[in-house]
């Protein structure tokens, strides 16, 4: 479902150009749990941006669900993010002073889902992400790190995306909580069949995935 063909990404083309990605090609199938890993500066973040339709490659093709999205406009990319991709960030990026439920429902606002359906969708996402029901009406800033990350996962899940992209999801968590969050991803993958792409620089975490794509200096090793 994800297919990258000879993706190159060059910043500052001209004199001072940085060749971040060099002829990257790989494929991720539906239902896979893949980790993309590598040292910092290897280009893994840029790959994530391209897979997540936040950025376009300089050359090469990116197919998501058999649709070429390497040459789309800003608004078209926004539509793809809205319908096919769920992001989980290292720093959670929840709206502060806003309830857990409203945070999870946020993508549904932009997806134009009718109000009456939103609660149901948010509730089922929160259940899948494993957040206790008595926390649903709390403000996001009243939760612990692990709970916040589960809210973020629920937010990524809520609109049934094709892939969930997690960018260093355990980076701000202690080891124990990190493991709980990783287990959540694993459960989502096994029980519900979600496709998960995990970006991390930590080898131990990458090893929890079914498959590891190792990047160094812009190429796959």
């Amino acid at each position, binding site marked *: 479902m994800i297919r990258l063909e000879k993706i190159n990404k060059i910043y500052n083309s001209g004199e001072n150009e940085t060749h971040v990605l060099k002829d990257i090609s790989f494929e991720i199938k539906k239902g896979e749990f893949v980790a993309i890993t590598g040292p910092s500066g290897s280009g893994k973040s840029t790959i994530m*941006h391209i897979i*997540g339709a*936040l*950025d376009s490659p300089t050359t090469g093709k990116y197919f998501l669900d058999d649709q070429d999205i390497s040459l789309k406009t*800003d*608004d078209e990319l*926004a*539509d793809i*993010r*809205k*319908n096919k991709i769920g*992001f989980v*960030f290292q720093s959670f*990026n929840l*709206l502060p*002073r*806003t309830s857990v439920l409203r945070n999870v429902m*946020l*993508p549904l*606002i*932009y*997806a*134009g889902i009718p*109000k009456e359906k939103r609660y149901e969708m948010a509730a089922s996402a929160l259940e899948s992400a494993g957040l206790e029901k008595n926390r649903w009406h709390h403000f996001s800033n009243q939760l612990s790190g692990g709970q916040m990350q589960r809210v973020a996962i629920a*937010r990524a899940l809520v609109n049934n995306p094709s892939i969930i992209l997690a960018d260093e999801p355990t980076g701000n968590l202690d080891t124990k909580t990190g493991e709980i969050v990783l287990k959540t991803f694993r459960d989502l993958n096994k029980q519900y069949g979600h496709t998960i792409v995990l970006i991390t620089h930590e080898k131990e975490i990458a090893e929890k995935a079914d498959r590891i794509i190792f990047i160094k200096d812009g190429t796959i090793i």
Partner: protein
Amino acid sequence: MFLSDLYNETISAVLSNKARSGLTILGVVIGIASVIAMIAVGQGAQKSVEESIQSMGSNLLEISPGVSSNKTGGVSQGRGSAQTLTYQDSLDIAEQISSIKAVAAELVSRYQINFKGNNTNAQVVGTVPSYVVINDLNLELGSFLSDQDINNKNRVAIIGSGIRDDLFGEGVNPIGQKIKINATTEFKIVGVLEETESGGVFGSQDNMVIIPISTAQTYLSNVSYVSSINVQTETQEDLSLVEKEITELLLIKHNIISADEADFSITNQADLIEAASSTTQTFTLLLATIAGISLLVGGIGIMNMMLTAVTERTREIGLRKSIGAKRKEINNQFLAESITLTVIGGVLGIILGWFISFIISKFGGIATNISAYSIVLAFGVSMIVGIIFGYYPAKRASKLNPIDALKYE
């Protein structure tokens, strides 16, 4: 994104920093309130000036003797002291010029008035029956001057209610009684003027004695001239034409060739109203400009807050974009916020402005007039301020690159 979602997001954003939103709104409130109050004061002034001019009677021309002001050189004797206008002039004007409703010559002087032991000093106006029409007078008792009174030089008088109160006592019917004017001449009272409400602008009619002009010239002043001639035209549109015709007629009658040499001057009431209202309009404009500056400052406050909000919420904008918000949606959201702030400020400002004008007219004694137009104007302006000063911050928010925005610390 539904409109109701835009509304909800906007409200929660505005409420998320109540102190800052409140202070920003306060800036707009002060701006709008001062616009409303200042325009109200200006228009109130305009209205009261116009009303006081109107109360002198409408469609009036006043002909005064003496040189016109545009003649230079020589010693001016001052208006009204010259003796160039005669009663005959007023008769000629009435006879020869069309579109005239009434003409009244006046000879005005102050005299001591006696009745038995009581005496008072009053303005004595020698005039003709049409005086009552021109000055819009009403009688409480008796009747006004008649043509016979003029022709026969009858010694009859109509007195103001104040004079009646002073000489005879309040509510007494003085008709038929005889008063002495200037200590020598006896006049029979035939009428009493109704008491005026406000007292008028130029000396009250309540303290006035009206007698036939012929009697005044013969028995009191022993002169042949008059103090002024008032002309009332049929309509206001006739004023300037009639003014021109009277000028020509009097120039010929007085054997004067050039209008610059005229021995009389004509004051057109329309000119007076126009001059007065253009003054008050300038006054209103000045006040509105001052108020507009404070509104501008309020608008800059909005822009400042919105720019701060964009910077502060960079990560939030990045997040919204990463979950599929389009540029337009981000733009609308920020624009809606600034418009919401200004509209809340606008509504509160209208209420405060109304309240301030109420206080001004209640305790400051200055007439104020809040027009629907100033409210609509203030509300529209506050919307426009929101759009203009929210436009740039909203544009900036919508243009943020989601990758950079998410990384923003």
